[in-house]
C-alpha cells in the first residue's frame, strides 16, 4: 500500500490504488479516480439517503486472521480480499483504508441495469417535450446501462401532471423518480420544509404540504438538482432546448456574496442563469432573485449611442469632449460598487489624473438572508477599496457631493453607472453641473448628461469582482453587447488616454492587470489568467477595521473573517 499522507488513505478502485482524503464516500473516491459512479439521489451538499440504488457496487476489505491479526495471503502472496456477498451503495460507504471496490463487474452492471429498468417502467418517455432532455441523468444512464427495450407491458402509473408547487417551480409527478433531493434541499439548505411524499410504494407522489407553497427564494435550486424533468422552471420551460445553450461562467451581481453562475445563452440571448459550483462561496446553490438579473440585458431602454449634448458621436469624440470638460478641474467622481475591479482601477487613475475634489461610491443595502444574499447589495465594494478608488465604506446618499455642487466647489461630475438622481442629487442640481455619465440604461442622469457613454452589462463584458471574503472572481462575456458599444474598460481607457497621453490606454484586461499587479501590493503576482475557478483570496487585512455591514452567509462569517485578517496582518 502507498504511504498515506496527511489525512489521505489508500483505496483500491477496480484494483487501481489511489489516495483519497479520508472521510469521503466512495462516489467521490470513484470520481477522484477518474471514473463515474452513476447516481441519482446522492448530492454532494445534501444528506445521504441511499434510495435510488444506482450506485450499487461490490466492495471488500483485506482479510486478516482474527486470532493472530496477520494478513491472509492468496497464492500470489497478495492479501486476500473478503468481498461482501451483497452489493453496497457507494454513497453511504465511507472510504476506509485498504477498501477494494468494483465499479464495473458483472454484478454491478446487472444492478445498474435492474435499477434503470425499474426507474423507466413507470416513467413517461416524453423526452421530446421534456425540458430536462439533454441534461437528464435518466437519459444519460439509460444510454449507458439501459436495456434498450422494455419488458414492461402493463399500464403505467398515472400521477398528477403540471402541478404548480410555487410561483417558479412546476412539478410533473409522473417523471419523478422519488430521489428526494428536492425534499432534502428544502429541509436542509433552504430551511423551508414544504415538500414531501404522500402515498406509498410505486404510487408515492411528491407534493407540497397542504396550504403551503414552494416559494422561498431558493426554490429554483430544486429544479437544478432534480436529476430528471420532474421539477422545471416555470420561467424557462419550453423556451429553449438545453443542448443549444452555450454556458458562460459569470458572477451574480445581486450582493457581495459573489455567487458563481453560468449564463446559458443562444444567439446572443440569455435564456437562464444557473448556479456554478464553488465550494468556497455558494456550493451549488443560488437565489431565485439572482436568476432574473439578466432581464435588463434585453430591455428596450438600453443606451446604445455615445452622445455629446444629445447628439450621437463616436467613442473617441466623446472621450475627447469628456477630457476637455474634466481637465477644467473641480471634478467629483462617483464610482460604482457594481463596476468591475478593472473599471474601478481605471476610474481611480482618471480621478487622480484630474485631481478630483472627491471620489464617492454609492452603497446599496438590504437585508441579508444568511445564505447567499448579503446585506451589501453591491458586488464589488471591496474592489473599490483595493484599487484605492475609495478609502471608507460608501454611503447611500451623496449629501456631501450635493453640498459641493450647491456651493460651486464641484462643477463637473463623472458618474460611472450610478443614477445620481437616486442618490440625493436632484435633476436641477445636476443641470447646474457638467455631467459625464457612463451607463447601461436610460435614466434621468443620462438625460441631463453632457457626455454620455453607453456601457455593457455584466453579461456582455469580462472582468472581475472582489466578494465579501476578498475573493477575486472573474466573469466572462456571455452575449455580445449592443452594436457599436465598446467594453467599459475601453471607453474608460480612451478617456484616460485623452487626459494623460503618457498613459498608453490599457485596452484589455491583461494590460490592466499588469498595471494593477505592479501598483497594488495585494495584487502582486496576480494575473487574470491564473485566477483559479474557485477564485483567489486577496489579503484584505488592511481593511479589517472597516465596519462592513455583512452578516453571516453560507461560507462567510464576519467574526472569523476579521480574526483571520488580523492574523495575516500580524
Amino acid at each position, binding site marked *: 500500500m502507498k504511504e498515506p499522507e496527511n489525512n489521505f488513505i489508500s483505496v483500491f478502485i477496480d484494483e487501481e490504488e489511489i489516495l483519497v482524503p479520508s472521510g469521503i464516500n466512495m462516489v467521490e473516491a470513484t470520481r477522484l479516480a477518474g471514473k463515474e459512479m452513476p447516481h441519482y439521489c446522492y448530492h454532494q451538499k445534501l444528506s445521504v439517503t441511499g434510495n435510488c440504488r444506482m450506485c450499487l457496487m461490490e466492495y471488500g476489505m483485506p482479510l486478516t486472521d482474527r486470532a493472530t491479526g496477520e494478513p491472509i495471503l492468496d497464492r500470489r502472496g497478495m492479501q486476500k480480499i473478503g468481498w461482501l456477498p451483497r452489493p453496497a451503495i457507494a454513497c453511504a460507504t465511507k472510504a476506509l483504508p485498504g477498501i477494494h471496490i468494483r465499479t464495473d463487474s458483472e454484478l454491478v452492471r446487472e444492478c445498474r441495469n*435492474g435499477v434503470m429498468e425499474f426507474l423507466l417502467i413507470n416513467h413517461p418517455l416524453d423526452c421530446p417535450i421534456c425540458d430536462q432532455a439533454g441534461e437528464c441523468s435518466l437519459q444519460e444512464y439509460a444510454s449507458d446501462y439501459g436495456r434498450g427495450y422494455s419488458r414492461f407491458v402493463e399500464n403505467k402509473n398515472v400521477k398528477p401532471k403540471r402541478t404548480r408547487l410555487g410561483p417558479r417551480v412546476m412539478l410533473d409527478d409522473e417523471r419523478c423518480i*422519488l430521489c428526494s433531493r428536492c425534499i432534502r434541499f428544502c429541509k436542509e439548505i433552504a430551511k423551508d420544509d414544504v415538500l*414531501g411524499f404522500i402515498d*406509498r410504494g410505486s404510487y408515492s407522489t411528491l407534493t407540497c404540504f397542504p396550504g403551503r407553497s414552494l416559494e422561498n427564494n431558493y426554490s429554483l435550486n430544486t429544479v437544478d438538482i432534480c436529476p430528471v424533468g420532474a421539477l422545471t422552471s416555470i420561467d424557462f420551460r419550453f423556451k429553449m432546448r438545453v443542448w443549444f445553450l452555450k454556458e458562460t461562467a459569470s458572477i451574480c451581481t445581486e450582493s457581495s456574496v459573489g455567487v458563481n453562475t453560468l449564463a446559458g445563452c443562444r444567439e446572443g440571448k440569455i435564456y437562464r442563469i444557473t448556479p456554478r459550483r464553488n465550494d468556497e462561496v455558494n456550493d451549488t446553490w443560488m437565489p431565485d432573485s439572482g436568476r432574473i438579473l439578466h432581464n435588463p440585458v434585453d430591455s428596450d431602454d438600453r443606451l446604445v449611442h455615445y452622445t455629446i449634448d444629445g447628439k450621437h458621436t463616436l467613442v473617441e469624440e466623446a472621450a475627447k469632449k469628456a477630457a476637455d470638460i474634466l481637465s477644467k478641474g473641480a471634478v467629483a467622481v462617483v464610482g460604482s460598487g457594481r463596476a468591475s475591479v478593472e473599471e474601478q482601477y481605471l476610474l481611480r487613475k482618471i480621478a487622480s489624473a484630474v485631481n478630483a475634489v472627491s471620489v464617492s461610491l454609492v452603497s446599496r443595502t438590504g437585508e441579508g438572508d444568511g445564505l447567499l444574499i448579503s446585506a451589501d447589495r453591491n458586488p464589488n465594494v471591496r474592489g473599490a477599496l483595493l484599487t484605492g478608488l475609495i478609502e471608507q465604506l460608501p454611503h447611500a446618499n451623496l449629501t456631501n457631493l450635493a453640498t459641493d455642487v450647491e456651493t460651486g466647489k464641484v462643477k463637473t461630475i463623472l458618474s460611472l453607472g450610478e443614477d445620481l438622481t437616486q442618490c440625493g442629487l436632484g435633476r436641477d442640481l445636476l443641470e447646474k453641473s457638467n455631467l459625464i455619465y457612463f451607463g447601461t440604461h436610460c435614466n434621468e442622469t443620462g438625460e441631463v448628461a453632457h457626455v454620455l457613454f453607453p456601457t455593457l452589462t455584466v453579461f456582455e463584458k469580462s472582468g472581475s469582482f472582489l466578494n465579501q471574503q476578498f475573493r477575486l472572481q472573474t466573469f466572462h462575456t456571455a452575449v455580445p453587447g449592443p452594436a457599436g458599444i465598446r467594453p467599459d474598460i475601453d471607453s474608460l481607457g480612451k478617456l484616460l488616454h485623452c487626459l494623460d497621453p503618457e498613459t498608453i490606454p490599457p485596452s484589455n484586461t491583461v494590460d490592466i492587470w499588469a498595471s494593477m499587479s505592479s501598483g497594488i501590493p495585494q495584487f502582486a503576482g496576480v494575473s487574470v489568467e491564473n485566477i483559479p475557478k474557485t477564485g483567489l483570496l486577496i489579503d484584505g487585512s488592511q481593511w479589517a477595521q472597516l465596519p462592513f455591514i455583512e452578516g453571516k452567509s453560507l461560507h462567510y462569517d464576519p467574526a472569523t473573517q476579521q480574526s483571520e485578517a488580523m492574523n495575516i496582518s500580524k
Partner: protein
Amino acid sequence: MIPAEQRVILKYLDEPGYTNDIECYIRHGGYEMLRKAFTMNPEEICHEVELSALRGRGGAGFPAGMKWKFLDRKSGKPIYLICNADESEPGTFKDRQIIHKDPHQLIEGMMIAAYATGTKLAFIYIREEFPQGANILEKAIEEAQASNFVGSNILGSGYSCDIIVHRGAGAYICGEETGLIESLEGKRPYPRIKPPYFPAVLGLYQCPTIVNNVETLCNIKHIIEIGGEDYSHIGVPGATGTRIWCVSGHVLKPGYYEFAGGAITLGELIYEVCGGMRPGRRLKAVIPGGSSAKILRADERYEGHLRDGTAFDWGIDDIPLDFDSFMAVGTMSGSAGVIVMDDTVDMVQALANLNAFYAHESCGQCTPCREGSLWMKKVSTRMCNGKARAEDVDLLASISKQIEGRTICAFGEACSWPTQSFVSKFKEEFAAKASETRSSTDNNGNRLI
C-alpha cells in the same frame, strides 16, 4: 399420539378463568422475576440472556444477547428500548395472543430487559390494527405503575423507567426496526440505511436503541426464572427455548402452538397437532415462516448438510421446527407463521395475492422494491386474468432477482422470495396459465387488493 405442547409463554394464557388484569397475573406468580432481576446486576442479566442463546422471535432470528451487547453504552446518550408489537407478517398471530391475554408477562419481560440494558424510556410500538390490544396494554401499564412495577424507583431499586404505548398508522414496513424508529419519531417510516444507522448505536432520536419482538421480551422473564444455562437446554442448539407456531390455512385445527425448538417436525405439526388436512385433500405446499418465507413444495425432497456437518434427506414432513433446519432447506422459520395450502390452491392466484400485499406495503423509498413489487403484482394479476404470456414466468423470476439484496431493508427479500420460490417450484402451473386462453373479461371476478 399427538405431541404435547410445551407451554412456557402461553402457560396460563388459555386457562379458564385467567384474565389479563394484574391481580390474576400476580396470583400466578407474576412480577416475581422482576423482583429477582433487581437482586442481580444488569450485567449479570445480560450474561444470562447471552448464555440462554435466545434468538429473536420477530423473523430474523438474531441472537438477543448479542443485540444487547452491540448497544453503545458509552455514548452518554439515553438508551431506549422498543418492543416491536407491529405484528404484520401475514400468517403470524402470536404476539396478539400475548398482548390480549397476558399483557403483564410482556411488561414484566420488558422491565427486566429495560433494567438490564439501562434503558431510560421504553416504548411499545403496536400496529394500528390492534386497537383493543393497545387499550389492554395501556390499562396493564397503568396497573403496573400503580403497583410500582413500572415508573420511578421501581420496587425501591432506584431504577426508573416508564413504558409508552405508541400506535402505528397501518403500515407493514413499521415492523422493520429502523422504519419503526422513524415512525416513532413521527416521520414517514422509511427504513434507514445501515451503515451507519444501526439502532444499537444510532437508533431512536439518534440514541442507542434496542428493538425486540414481543415474544422475545416475554422469554427474558423465563430466562431469569430458570437461568440462561438451563434455558439453553430447552430445545436444540440454535433454537433454544420454546417457540409459538402460528398455523393457518387448510388444516383442520389452525391455531397457535408452543413447542420447544426442534421438538417436532413440520409433518407432526400439520398432521397431528393441527389435525391434518381437510377431508379428501392433499398437502400441496407450506409457507413456513410468514408470507415472506420461501414456499416448500409437498412432493419435494431436501438433501444436504446441516451446519454441524450431519447429512439430511428430508421430505417436507420431516423438517424439524427450528431455525437452522428451515435455513438448510432453503427457506426460513421467519416469524413462525406456517401457512398450509392444499391441492385446491391455484399457486398463481396465491402469488398474485401475496404480490398485491407487498406492492401495497412497499414504502416506496428505494427503487428496486418500490417499482419491482408493483410490477410483479401487475404481472401476476394479469396472469390470473387470462392474459398470461409464456415469457411471464421468466420475467417474474428476473424481476424478483433484480430486487433481492439490492434494497435498503429486508423488504426487498420479503417481497421477492415468494415470487422466486413460487415461480421456481411451481413452474408448470405458471407455464400452464400462459396456455390457458380465457375469455376476455378483465378480471374474471377475482378482486385482488
